[in-house]
């Protein structure tokens, strides 16, 4: 129990043990650097504790129940019942195993673990305030630091997460009963993943979105597949509406009130309201100004292609450093930060960061869309393969969606890919490797793909872009 201040030193100080921070710390230690990782809450950060991992566990559970209950067409009759408490317990077990694993991996690699809240007191010093039993604080001198403090959900005025019926994504991942009616404010990827999950669990889901479609950054034909399926699952969409307030309803539930730009109002009867309108960087309490670091107007820490902030020996990675706010981008940046600190020739020179949305069906994208390729001055060669022409897709009962490959007409270089359909999150890996390697359409098409697999659709899309597809008509 440390009361009062002790000062210790470390070569590399990492603040925050999410996928950005713990990966940076492990790689720094692997590089032989004396490394200290400070975490105030739970190892694994948002991703493992209330993001990627818990959401995917509930998506699996709800997906299996829904699929089994709707498989008469293939001769499987079941009437599954979900024990939500048990599902959450299982999810918690998965989270515990993973976060415990992170802690063990840090230790096994020789990372010093410190629990507490870090704040800068100078360019080379932080104070770590311990909570709970081990109250007090300690001062840590460092040669290099990596800020990896992540992000938290944005609150909408009038919707306080402290209220029992106003859910953040974290609350939605910890509910032990399924609300009869769920209002979802925000049709981004987090809102859509959870809307789908709860619809499959039996909730009547209403999505309210300011824009005129879901999943803003994606192409129309990609969105359409996901929206159509969500509608089939009973999800109701209300576009062009912003959530303005909630009131108690006479029947015991709540009324979610929305407003269009023109001031038109609507109300929806709900039991819980999930607010998922985006995430903001966590820098409060860090006292960045003491280290001479500024944030941009949205609060993110600005970095260069070596993940360095304006103060050269202080790096920032992950959500706190801005887009793409994704776990694997955070980890990739963490590795680059550690290697740059170790003097390796590392840089954020990745060609593309893939992204996935775990809706039904999934979306996986990497690199450029056709429009982006044209914008960048390429003459895009585009090929597609719909999953309803894929033998493997038919044998799984999931034939929605397609694979699209975008390449440069002249050289054949693969510039990007958009996949919406079964296992899109996995299939995009091959396309990502192709983009990263500078592979051509011919390289992808000439690589023998196992039959029958969904991955054949990637090959087929590449062939289609060359006017040589076998299983689909060429444009």
């Amino acid at each position, binding site marked *: 129990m440390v009361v009062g201040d002790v000062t210790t030193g470390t070569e590399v100080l990492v603040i925050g043990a999410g996928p950005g921070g713990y990966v940076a710390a492990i790689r720094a230690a692997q590089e032989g650097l004396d490394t200290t990782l400070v975490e105030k809450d739970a190892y694994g950060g948002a991703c493992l504790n209330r993001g990627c991992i818990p959401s995917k566990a509930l998506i699996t559970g709800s997906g299996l129940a829904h699929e089994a209950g709707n498989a008469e067409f293939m001769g499987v009759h079941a009437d599954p019942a979900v024990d939500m408490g048990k599902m959450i317990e299982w999810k918690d077990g998965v989270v515990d195993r993973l976060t415990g694993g992170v802690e063990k991996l840090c230790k096994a690699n020789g990372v010093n673990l410190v629990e507490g809240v870090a704040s800068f007191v100078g360019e080379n010093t932080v104070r770590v305030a311990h909570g709970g039993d081990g109250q007090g604080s300690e001062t840590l001198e460092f040669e290099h630091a990596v800020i990896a403090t992540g992000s938290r959900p944005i609150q909408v005025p009038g919707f306080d997460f402290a209220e029992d019926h106003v859910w953040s994504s974290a609350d939605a991942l910890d509910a032990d009963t399924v609300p009869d009616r769920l209002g979802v404010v925000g049709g981004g990827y987090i809102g859509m993943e959870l809307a789908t999950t709860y619809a499959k669990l039996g909730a009547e889901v209403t999505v309210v979105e300011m824009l005129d479609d879901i999943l803003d950054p994606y192409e129309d034909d990609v969105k359409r597949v996901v929206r159509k399926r969500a509608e089939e699952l009973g999800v109701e969409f209300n576009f062009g509406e912003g959530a303005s307030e909630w009131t108690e309803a006479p029947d015991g539930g709540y009324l979610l009130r929305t407003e269009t730009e023109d001031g038109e109002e609507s109300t929806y009867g709900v039991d819980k309201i999930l607010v998922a309108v985006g995430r903001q960087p966590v820098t409060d309490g860090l006292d960045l100004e003491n280290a001479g670091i500024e944030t941009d107007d949205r609060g993110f820490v600005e970095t260069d292609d070596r993940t360095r902030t304006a103060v050269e020996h202080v790096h920032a990675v992950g959500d706190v450093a801005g887009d793409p706010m994704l776990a694997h981008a955070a980890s990739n940046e963490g590795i680059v930060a550690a290697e740059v600190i170790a003097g390796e020739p590392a840089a954020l020179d990745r060609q593309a960061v893939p992204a996935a949305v775990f809706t039904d069906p999934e979306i996986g994208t990497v690199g450029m869309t056709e429009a982006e390729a044209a914008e960048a001055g390429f003459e895009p060669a585009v090929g597609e393969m719909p999953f309803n022409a894929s033998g493997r897709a038919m044998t799984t009962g999931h034939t929605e969606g397609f694979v699209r490959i975008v390449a440069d007409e002249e050289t*054949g270089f693969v510039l990007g890919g958009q996949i919406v359909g079964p296992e899109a999150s996995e299939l995009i890996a091959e396309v990502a490797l192709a983009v990263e390697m500078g*592979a*051509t359409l*011919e*390289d992808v098409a*000439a*690589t023998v793909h196992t039959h029958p697999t969904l991955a054949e659709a990637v090959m087929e899309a590449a062939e289609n872009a060359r006017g040589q597809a076998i299983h689909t008509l060429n444009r």
Partner: protein
Amino acid sequence: TSEPDTPSGRTFAPPSARRLARELGVDVAAVDGSGPGGRVTEADVRAHAEGGGSADPGGAD
């Protein structure tokens, strides 16, 4: 003459480079690779062909 640059005599080159080599009648195993680990690129194959590198008797027919 093609000195195998790997123990198995295997040349590492993407399919596009291998096909180009056949098209140009170049023995891909005889091409000096400029890529990582000595990987042969399409440009390497072209340079080899233009540099009058040994034609492959078993190449494109």
